[in-house]
Structure formats: structure tokens, C-alpha cells
């Protein structure tokens, strides 16, 4: 305790002078109030008995004198502006950077109370931050910065301790890695140039390379005192580092699921991986993992009717699992949308109609006109125009055209070689998926046209060496069948419906049907088409997370950017365009072994001793205002008591 106002000697002189004056006034005879009474003789007889209490009356006056001197002492002390040692020091400006990475949800190593969960590293860091705030003096200020995937300010630069404590209470560990570099940059800007600039970093040391570099730069900064307080603990953790589900390309009604589990701890551990689909368990695998071992598990031949998959780790000893955020992962399989097939025909090829109609529900067959402007929206357009000419412009989609060069001015992209009368089909590419189980041998054809192939084109069937069925694969496939089925017996063969089925399957396998889960934290662009949502005419989508908070994102060139901070299944809804209201789902997983690694790297950084933060300063005796206000309040209270007792005739 010291006085920052008047010096002690000055205060002594002041107290002496005023105390002497009070004493002199006290010694002067107190002027009594005069009361005229009618029967003084009787009063005298009565009051004669109270003479024995004269000593107490004198003591009471002495007490009154002491009260006066005490009041004077308080006022003199207030003039001296007393301050505790915590306040006398120079003012400080402290930026408290709290590492809110996922690893801060790990155990702190502090002994747990009975029936309570082990203390987390974040709790220890928050307690340390609160202690630092409580130790602030009246001239000190602090700012609380949260270093999660995104940097945020929990409490702005202020000397209001209650506001700072409230800000600290709101901090919770995130599910990703901390952007320590951004947080330290912000902290430096916040305190630089202020008196006693200081950055206090509260972390568990489990930072990535960028964070470690930022930490090193902060400590090396001469202008700002940078201190680190480490709150680490046991590093046992087993995490799901990858999880995805996909349809089989050759069997879209079946799925396979892949889960990658990694032991990031220092000891071998046994866990159980359980995969559920729409709440129904579809697989359960016990896994024993050595330290650092990564294991991939695949669940095959799952029913495609399931669309939501969830993988969860469990263990008898929950401590080996570490924090919860990486013990669960999600995957979403886009719904199987029907393949839209447009048939442009003169209606005379009933065999073709029958072959297409027998393909099942996953094929949506429409009869269309050659001049229909919406043909490009179909997944596959089949031209079987017979004696009619092809349209001048072919749609930009997968095409299968029968007898494309019947007329010379055909827009078909694969060029014509020559017309052939009664061609014989002599060769075929048996291993090509389009010709699986299909035999063109002995097919009788009245007239046909061979194609002039270009590099990259495939000749599926040849007639005496000339390609009569050709395939071009660019962005879309273009299949040319160089004869009219009506002028052959091909439709009557068993190979014809198989060929049509192969054609549709081939196109189906080229349409989107698989998407990996989105990583947590990173802002990444996702294609709407990859998610099974048509981007045409769409400018905005709404992304709703597992906690239900909606966010509107713009769509540019069929892609939108999404940054998810919580793992789970996100719903993407189209807000405009033809697909307004359509919804698809995206799984977001932690899927970052770096974020799940609970080991501290600070030991490897060889930090200087002065960079280590000591214990928190002692709490200031008063949180609001200097001590002299408290002294004056006490004096006022004493005066109030004196006043009340005076008017109650207690002290006079």
C-alpha cells in the first residue's frame, strides 16, 4: 500500500492540524440546548440519580471524539489516494489470446472431482484468463481474442472487468485448428502503441506449423511482451480421419462406405467403429490400433436406399478416444435421380420403344420433337428419325443417333466415310461396355453408312474394316449407329434390348453420383451439380447446418462457397431458379488429423524462459475505481451512522 497523492509527511501534517482543531473544539465546553422546565426541583431530584452514570457519559463523548478523528483520518487517507501495489505499477494493455482449437477440448490432466467429467484444457485456459482479468488495475485494459478456425474478439479492449469476464465465459473449443497467426496479428494491432503492451497466449501447444511460426514471431517481437501459458494434458486420442460413401458405378443401387481411423495417442488402444445408415446399424468393427497407426475399413454392398451414414467410435475406456469431436463422422449419398432419356422418332420403331420402356424406374423416357429447345436438359437423346432429317443443331448432351448420314447435310459430328449396301458386320469391340453381351454377328442390314473416325473415336462395330458403329467421348458421348434398324433384323434379336440397356447404363455411369464429405473449417467451393442439384438459373442457396442456423450463399458458375464450423450434415436449398425449393445434403467432417493431434509442439520450439507466463497476478482488492473512493464511501457511511445516532439521541 502506498500513497500516490499527497506524501505521507504532508498527510501527517494535515491530520495533525485538523486533529488538533477537532480536539480543541472537543475540549471546549459543549453548548447544551436549553430547556425551560416548570418544576426544576423535581428534575433535580430525579437527575441526581443519574450522576453515577457521568463516567459513561464522558466515555461516550470520548467515543464521539474518536469517531471524529477516525473520520478525519479517512478523509486524509482519501486525499493521499492510497493504492495497492498492484495499482501503483504502470498501466498495462493485455491481449489475451485463447486457443480455441479442437484440441482444447482435450483433457487437461487436472484431477477430476467425483462424478464429474475430467476438466478440459479450455476450462483451465479460461480460468487463467479470468485470473489475469481479475488482476487488472484501474488503469489496465485488456482484450480477449479467440483463436479458432476464425479469429473473433470475445471482449473488446476495455477496463471493465465484468465485461471481460463475460466475454471469457462465452469461449468454447471449436472443431478445427486454431488460426493462431491471425489471432496474434490481431492481438498485436490491438495493443501496439498502448502502455505496457502485452500478449498472453493461452494454449495447449497443439498448434500447426503456421501457428508455431506465428508464435515464434510474436515472442521475437521486441515491441510487445509475448508470453505463453500452456494448459496441456494427456494426448490419447483416436479419431476418424476420413469417412465417405459412394454408389457403385456399375450398380447404382448399391453403396460402399469407407472409414479411416487413426490412433494419434501414445499407446495402443482398442476401439469399436460402428456405422449407421439412417439410424440403422450397418456395420460394427472392433479395431486395435498401435500408436500412430491408421486403419481403413470398407463396408461393401450396402443398400442404396440409405442416404445418411454416420460413423462413431466407442471404447470401454473413454479416455483413449480423447475429445468427442473427432469420434463421429458423417456421409451423405445423393439420391438416385432418374436418367432422363428423350426419344426422337417417327414412331415406327416399336422395338426401340419397347427396349427403352423395359429399362425400369430409374429411366425417365420422354418422346420429344427434334426441334425441342430443351433437349439439352436430357441426359440422353436418342435420334431414330427414319426418313426424316436430323435437326440443324444437335443438343449438347449425350447422343445416340441411328443412321445419322441418311442425308448428306447431316449435322452429326462424326463424319461419313461412305454408303454401304448390305453391309456385313465383321468385327466388334467385345470388351467395350456398350457391347457387353451384345453380338452383332449375322445381323442382316439392307443399307448402311460407315464413319470417318478422328483420333480418340472408337469403332465399336466394323463392316469389313470400316466402322459402322462409332463412339466419340468428349464432355458428352456421341454414339453413331450407321444403319437404320428398320432396314435390318437387329431389333428382332436379343442383342438389341441389351445394346439399348448398355447404352443407358453407360450414360448413367457418367452422371454425378458420388461426392466426398466437405472438410470442417476451410472455406471451399462446392459444385451444385456434384451434389445433384441443377445450377441453372440459380443465384442463391441456403445452407442450414446441423444446429439449424441458416446461411445464404451466392452461386456463381454453378458453385457456392461453404465454411462449416460444426461437423454434421448440412442441407443446401435452392432459393431461386427452376429448382427453387430443391434440397440436397452435404456431410461435413472434421477429417483433419492435425486438429485431432493433442500433442504439444511447444517443447520442440525451445521457447525462451521469459516467454513462459507466470502465475496470474493477485486480484485487485476492488474492481471498480481507486481505493480512495472506497475510503470516502466508508467515511460517508460513518457519517451516516453518526448522523442517525445523533438524531436518535444516542451519541449526544
Amino acid at each position, binding site marked *: 500500500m502506498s500513497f500516490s497523492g499527497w506524501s505521507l509527511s504532508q498527510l501527517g501534517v494535515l491530520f495533525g492540524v485538523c486533529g488538533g482543531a477537532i480536539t480543541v473544539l472537543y475540549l471546549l465546553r459543549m453548548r*447544551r440546548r436549553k430547556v*425551560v*422546565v*416548570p*418544576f*426544576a426541583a423535581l*428534575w*433535580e*431530584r430525579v437527575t441526581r440519580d*443519574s450522576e453515577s452514570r457521568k463516567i459513561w457519559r464522558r466515555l461516550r463523548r470520548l467515543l464521539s471524539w474518536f469517531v471524529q478523528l477516525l473520520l478525519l483520518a479517512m478523509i486524509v487517507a482519501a486525499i493521499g489516494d492510497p493504492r495497492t501495489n498492484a495499482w501503483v505499477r504502470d498501466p498495462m494493455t493485455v491481449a489475451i489470446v485463447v486457443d480455441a482449437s479442437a484440441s482444447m477440448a482435450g483433457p487437461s490432466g487436472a484431477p477430476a472431482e467425483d462424478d464429474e467429467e475430467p476438466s478440459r484444457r479450455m476450462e483451465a485456459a479460461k480460468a487463467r484468463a479470468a485470473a489475469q482479468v481479475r488482476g487488472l488495475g484501474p488503469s489496465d485494459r485488456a482484450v480477449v481474442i479467440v483463436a479458432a478456425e476464425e479469429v473473433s474478439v470475445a471482449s473488446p479492449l476495455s477496463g471493465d472487468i465484468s465485461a471481460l469476464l463475460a466475454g471469457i465465459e462465452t469461449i468454447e473449443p471449436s472443431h478445427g485448428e486454431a488460426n493462431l497467426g491471425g489471432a496474434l496479428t490481431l492481438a498485436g494491432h490491438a495493443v501496439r502503441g498502448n502502455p505496457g503492451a502485452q500478449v498472453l497466449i493461452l494454449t495447449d501447444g497443439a498448434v500447426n506449423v503456421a501457428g508455431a511460426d506465428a508464435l515464434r514471431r510474436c515472442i521475437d517481437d521486441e515491441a510487445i511482451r509475448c508470453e505463453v501459458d500452456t494448459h496441456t494434458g494427456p494426448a490419447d486420442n483416436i479419431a476418424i480421419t476420413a469417412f465417405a460413401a459412394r454408389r457403385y458405378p456399375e450398380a447404382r443401387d448399391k453403396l460402399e462406405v469407407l472409414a479411416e481411423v487413426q490412433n494419434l495417442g501414445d499407446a495402443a488402444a482398442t476401439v469399436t467403429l460402428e456405422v449407421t445408415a439412417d439410424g440403422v446399424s450397418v456395420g460394427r468393427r472392433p479395431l486395435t490400433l498401435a500408436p500412430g497407426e491408421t486403419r481403413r475399413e470398407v463396408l461393401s454392398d450396402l443398400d442404396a436406399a440409405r442416404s445418411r451414414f454416420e460413423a462413431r467410435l466407442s471404447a470401454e475406456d473413454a479416455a483413449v478416444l480423447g475429445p468427442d469431436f473427432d469420434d463421429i463422422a458423417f456421409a451423405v449419398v445423393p439420391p438416385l435421380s432418374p436418367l432422363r432419356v428423350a426419344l426422337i422418332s417417327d414412331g415406327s420403331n416399336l422395338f426401340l420403344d419397347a427396349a427403352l420402356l423395359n429399362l425400369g424406374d430409374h429411366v425417365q423416357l420422354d418422346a420429344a420433337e427434334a426441334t425441342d429447345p430443351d433437349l439439352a436438359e436430357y441426359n440422353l437423346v436418342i435420334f431414330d428419325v427414319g426418313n426424316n432429317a436430323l435437326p440443324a443443331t444437335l443438343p449438347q448432351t449425350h447422343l445416340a443417333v441411328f443412321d445419322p448420314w441418311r442425308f448428306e447435310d447431316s449435322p452429326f459430328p462424326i463424319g461419313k466415310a461412305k454408303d454401304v449396301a448390305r453391309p456385313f458386320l465383321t468385327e466388334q469391340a467385345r470388351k467395350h461396355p456398350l457391347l457387353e453381351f451384345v453380338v452383332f454377328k449375322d445381323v442382316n442390314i439392307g443399307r448402311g453408312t460407315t464413319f470417318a473416325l478422328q483420333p480418340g473415336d472408337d469403332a465399336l462395330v466394323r463392316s469389313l474394316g470400316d466402322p459402322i458403329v462409332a463412339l466419340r467421348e468428349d464432355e458428352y458421348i456421341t454414339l453413331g449407329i450407321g444403319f437404320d434398324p428398320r432396314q435390318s433384323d437387329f431389333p428382332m434379336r436379343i442383342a438389341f434390348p441389351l445394346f439399348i440397356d448398355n447404352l443407358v447404363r453407360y450414360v448413367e455411369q457418367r452422371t454425378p453420383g458420388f461426392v466426398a464429405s466437405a472438410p470442417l473449417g476451410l472455406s471451399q467451393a462446392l459444385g451444385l451439380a456434384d451434389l445433384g442439384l441443377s445450377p441453372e438459373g440459380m443465384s442463391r442457396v441456403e445452407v442450414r447446418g446441423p444446429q439449424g442456423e441458416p446461411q445464404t450463399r451466392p452461386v456463381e458458375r454453378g458453385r457456392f462457397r461453404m465454411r462449416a464450423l460444426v461437423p454434421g450434415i448440412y442441407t443446401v436449398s435452392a432459393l431461386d431458379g427452376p429448382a427453387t425449393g430443391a434440397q440436397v445434403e452435404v456431410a461435413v467432417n472434421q477429417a483433419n488429423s492435425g486438429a485431432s493431434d493433442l500433442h504439444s509442439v511447444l517443447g520442440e520450439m525451445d521457447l525462451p524462459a521469459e516467454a513462459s507466463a507466470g502465475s496470474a497476478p493477485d486480484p485487485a482488492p476492488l474492481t471498480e475505481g481507486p481505493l480512495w473512493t472506497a475510503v470516502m464511501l466508508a467515511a460517508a457511511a460513518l457519517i451516516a451512522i453518526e448522523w442517525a445516532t445523533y438524531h436518535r439521541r444516542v451519541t449526544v
Partner: protein
Amino acid sequence: MGLRERIFGAPKASAPSSDDLFDEAFLARLELLQVIARRLFRGRQRAERKTRKVGSGIEFADHRPYSPGDDIRNLDWNVYVRLRRTLIRLFEEDEDLPIRVVVDVSDSMCLGGGAKLRYAQQVGAALAYVGLANLDRVGLTCMSQESHVTLPAIRGKGRIFRVFDFLKSAQTGGATDIRAGCGRVAAQSNQPGLTIVLSDFYDLEGAFEGLNMLRFRKHEPVAIQIIDPAEADPTGSGLRGDVRLLDCEGDTQRDVTLSPRALASYAEAHERFCAQLQTNCRTRGIGYVRANIDIPFDDLVLRMFRQGGILR
């Protein structure tokens, strides 16, 4: 008037006027009353009060033998015819009653706005009117240590205004001295009678002695103690702390510390003082009535005095 004003430093009271003393209805009721004297006093003039004296009244009292010189109109002819004896009929003589109303006008009576003095004057005027209405001779005396003025005995209720004037013009102030005042009253009156003393009797030593002195001089004293309740019990006055008590009748002053306990002690002492005075009066056949000024004046006169045997 508040309690404090009645106790401390209020202006002295002025004497009452007839207007604010009584109204017509009250006077009419007073005329029905009569002052009671336990003894028979010899009056000077004929009036309505019986005496031992046998004279020219109208109520037969006795016979005596005729002697020369007797008025022959008083000869009882019926007895003479029956007994052949000459007897003179004697009649009771109705005389007046000498009444003296003594009002204490000391400073203690004037304290607190003079409420007690005013009350005493009202009571004294009322008693005087009762006496005058009954053709008694009524005299008044205002007494204190510094002043002693006397209104000689008057008769007839038409003189009531002299009573008022006397009370109004009487000098007030001075210390209470009951013994000296009563002694002078006893010395000045050559005919004993009913002497009513209106005072607070705040005289520790001489209060009863003065009354007793009247008794020795064949008077029939009646003590009416005028008491202000605020003075008798100051516990509710809010008075606390170190104060200097000044005697309103002298230079005596005393520094005391007043506490609730001290105030309660004073109230108890005051009660003991009044009770002692009452006991002394009763044991010696002196009439005593305690009149709190909180009691309405007419209630005191019309009810309490009758209950106390002062009026009937």
C-alpha cells in the same frame, strides 16, 4: 399546541375574557350548581345558605320562651292557646357563604403558552360564577411570590364581570410560593370560609403547608391541582441528550443527560409528588381534585367537581 410548545418557551398567557370563557348555555347550567361547604360558615348577609344562626328565615327551627322585647309577631299563638305558654317561634337564618378563589399566577402556571393558567382562570371564574349565582360572597386572589392581588368579596352574579376583569388584569409571573400566598390569604380574611386554591402546586416544600395553614385558620381549603400531561410525563416529548434545564421561576439551571430512562423517572417522580399531595389533603380533610388540562373545561366543572364534592 404541541407538547414542546407547551413545555418550552412559549409566550405568557393572557387572561380570559368573558366571551371565550363561557357561553350562555354553560352559564345556565352553572346557575343550577352550588358550591358545597362541608362546614357551616357564618355569613354576613342573608342569603340562601343555611347557617347555625336562628333568625328571620322562613323555615321553622325552634321555640324559646318569650322575653320582653321580642317581636310579638313571632309569638306562637297556637302553643299559647294549647299550653298557655308564651313561646316565640324561631326560624333558621339563611346566610351567604364566604368563598375565596385563589389562583396561582406563577411562572410555572404560565409556561408552555399559559395553558395551565388559562385553565385555572376558567375554572376559577366558573366557581366564582356558581358562588355569585347562589348569592354567596366570592372573593378572588391571584398569588405568586412576586404578586398578591385580591378582589374583595362581591355578591350577585351581575358582578361576574368584575371577576373577569380581575382575572384579566391580574399580574402574572414570579415563583410559586403556596405557603406564603395561602398565609396572606388566611391573614387577610377576617371571616373564614371556603377557599379554593387553583395551582399546579409545584412547590416541593410549601404546597401542602400552605393548604394546612388555611385549615388552621378555620378555612375549608380545597386544592385543585392543574396539571399539564406533557409536563407530567415528558417521555413522549422526544427530548433526549445533553441539555441544560432552566427553572422557569428562577435562575436555577442544571446540566443533565436526558435519556428515556431519566424521562420515565421524572414521570414517576411527578406522579409520586401528586399522589403525596393528594394523600396529605385527604388525610386532613382537604378537598383535592386533579385537573388535567386535556380534560375539557366544562366536563371538569359539570362532572368532576360534582363527583369530587365541590359542587352539587
